[in-house]
């Protein structure tokens, strides 16, 4: 009886330790990151129309994708870098297109978004090359995908300490991205 209990306790502990060693990516606080795809900007596919056989776009994994801390850092940068000025405080869009819907003019893949930020886009999106570190851009990428509900629920941002107009991404439904060739830019109210 005694032995049985001890074994059980040990097994439970072992399970815990296993969990611990695998870690919990959601909660990591990484302050310095070697970016996974420093050259992400060069091999990004902007359009599905291309010569030759069509390539299936493979999403570039980046370390911040399911990481709550990075997403929240992105949220902070979104305001500090005044992305909100064009895309709206809640990502609803104004001068620039909305970010919380399912339409992605230049692609919803992390590397597409990365390229959009770094390179800039016609009609007003400035290039942030050299202004933001790759780390920071990846954090922004993570947050922008967060606004469209593309992350797991448990890593998403919640409200900020601001007016209630600011989005509560945690409780919004996932906006499954539509193919980029599908829809032109449209600003929603």
């Amino acid at each position, binding site marked *: 009886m005694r032995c049985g*209990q001890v074994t059980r306790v040990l097994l439970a502990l072992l399970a815990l330790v296993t969990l611990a060693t695998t870690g919990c990516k959601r909660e990591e606080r990484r302050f310095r990151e070697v970016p996974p795809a420093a050259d992400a900007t060069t091999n990004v596919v902007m359009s599905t129309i291309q010569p030759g056989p069509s390539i299936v776009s493979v999403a570039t994994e980046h370390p911040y994708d399911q990481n*709550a801390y990075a997403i929240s850092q992105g949220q902070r940068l979104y305001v500090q870098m005044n992305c909100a000025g064009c895309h709206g405080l809640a990502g609803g869009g104004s001068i620039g297109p909305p970010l919380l819907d399912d339409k992605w003019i230049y692609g919803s893949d992390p590397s597409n978004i990365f390229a959009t930020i770094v390179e800039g886009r016609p009609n007003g999106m400035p290039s942030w090359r050299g202004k933001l570190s790759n780390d920071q851009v990846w954090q922004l990428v993570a947050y922008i995908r967060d606004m469209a509900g593309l992350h797991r629920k448990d890593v998403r941002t919640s409200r900020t300490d601001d*007016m*209630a107009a600011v989005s509560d991404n*945690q409780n919004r439904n996932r906006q499954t991205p539509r193919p980029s060739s599908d829809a032109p830019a449209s600003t929603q109210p």
Partner: protein
Amino acid sequence: MTATARVETLVEPELDLELDAVWRNRPGFIGWLTTTDHKSIAKRYVATAFIFFLLAGVEAATMRAQLSRPENGILGPDRYNQFFTMHGTTMMFLFAVPVMIGVGLYLVPLLVGARNVAFPRANAMGYWVYLIGGVLIYGGFFVNSGPDAGWFAYTPLSGPEFSPGKRVDIWAQMITFTEIAALIAAVIIITTAFRMRSPGMSLNRIPIMVWASVVMSFMIIFAMPSVATASLFLAMDRLISTHFFNAAEGGDALLWQHLFWFFGHPEVYIMFLPGTGIISSLLPSFTRRSVFGYPALVLSIIATGFIAFGLWVHHMFATPLPQLGQSFFTAASALVAIPNGIQIFCWIATIWTGRPIFRTPLLFAIGSIIIFVMGGMTGVMIASVPFDLQVHDTYFIVAHFHYVILGGVVFPLFAGMYYWFPKVTGRMLSETAGKWNFWLMFIGVHATFFPMHQLGMEGMPRRVYTYLEGTGWGDLNLVASLGALVIFSSVVVFLGNVIHSLRHGAIAGANPWDAESLEWATTSPAPSYNFANTPVVSGRAPLWESGDELPVMTGLARDRQQVLLTTVLDAEPDSRHDHPGHTIWPFIVALTIGIFFITLIFSPWGLPIGTVLGFIAYARYIWPKKSHEPAIVELPRSVPAAEVPK
């Protein structure tokens, strides 16, 4: 945990067998899950709390290692924040309160001569809920989801914007679990103490330990709802975007502080009052006289309980508050020294006119008085607003409250462990190891925490993961860290002592200390039914007064778990009450509560799922078994006899 083989019985063997068959735990693992015996549950509370104490101690030791020299690299800021938050949270929510609850749940029925606590199923459920809360937060901690906003979790740092992820959500739910457990235990202790006392144990004869547990329970009832409400608000702010603490939408960050400290300050006395109760109840055994000033001690405990609710703002002197209000809280904070002073003076008077016997429990009691007095002195100092504004949130405060809590909680607790260990296990702890344990701990506490006063005045703030070399704080920090090692070694000695004595300790016998109170009237360890016949009491020291013959009452049922209820004031026999016996359902209800709150962290679906599961489990929990004996009914006095149906 398992039914201990009993070596002796004080009553006729047939009666013992018959009662034991009704009261003892079921055999095996299932018995472990189904027991509603207060002794089994209380032992579990104490053992679990002690495991958390060790974990929190390891966290403390790691932090002390990090701080032993400037700009150390053992823990980074992220880890350190989790460690200090877990240390505080564990010590307050998972160790100090549950351990005192455990001690209360073990001792109160024995001290008042009852067979079990008032609501045994709820009691079992409370423990399971507490365990789920503790496992939840440590599960989180081990997978890098430990809370990192401090045990006080000030908003907005703990809010949705500045604490991303699920760390703080897990913390907030853990609070909910421990609240539920503590509130259940509080209601149980109060009801047990007021309704299940031995005949003759009128209010003025209740053992001081029981008074302390009762006042602790009342404080829990009025303090815990505050933190439960606060953590509910915080969880909602984080999970469904309410705005309680968001200034931009009409919320207020200070609201959190008010709600938290309205709980947080009484919390200190919730932990500390049972500590004083322990000292008051073991002093007679080691001074050979009843404790001096019973009425003064009881009134002091009650007064402390009241004043404790008027102190919370002294944690908030640096916030913008009107000066007049601050003065009120200063006065209250300083005046709480009076009831505490009375207790200490009464203890000294007791020792003065007694004949001290220097056994380990007394050593710990004396250590407790010394350490607590030193903590109390700095406590009065920081009641002063101007002085507090200098030392607030510095290591001076760290030193102060560790002195108070070690003196008021940990030392009495160790005294109690050495004192009641024979009652719980039937064996004595080793005296030699006990003295080593005491001296190491006593020296370690001063080495660790005394230098912190100086550090605080030299400007070292709390909750820093490191400090610069130029600050000059390195040497004293090194001393403190070495002191922590000494404390650590004393706890190791204690553990060794317990493990060794469980098997090889001297057999204790019913009353090894020749003590005065009722728990020593039964065998060690106490039988599953505690007392075969209900003891009758005619004074405050029943065992010293009754001589060789203990007066008892018979007549409680032998074929089911039945307890005697007495009146509140004079403890006259009033009625009999049947307990439901051992059952698995408290465990299952606790599980559904666990599912409810843990699912809520990740999804609103926890609400409907948890509610439905909980209701189903609870239905099974309360569903009645058939009674086997006709009831004896007594209708309320307001009902005229003519209307009684028959």
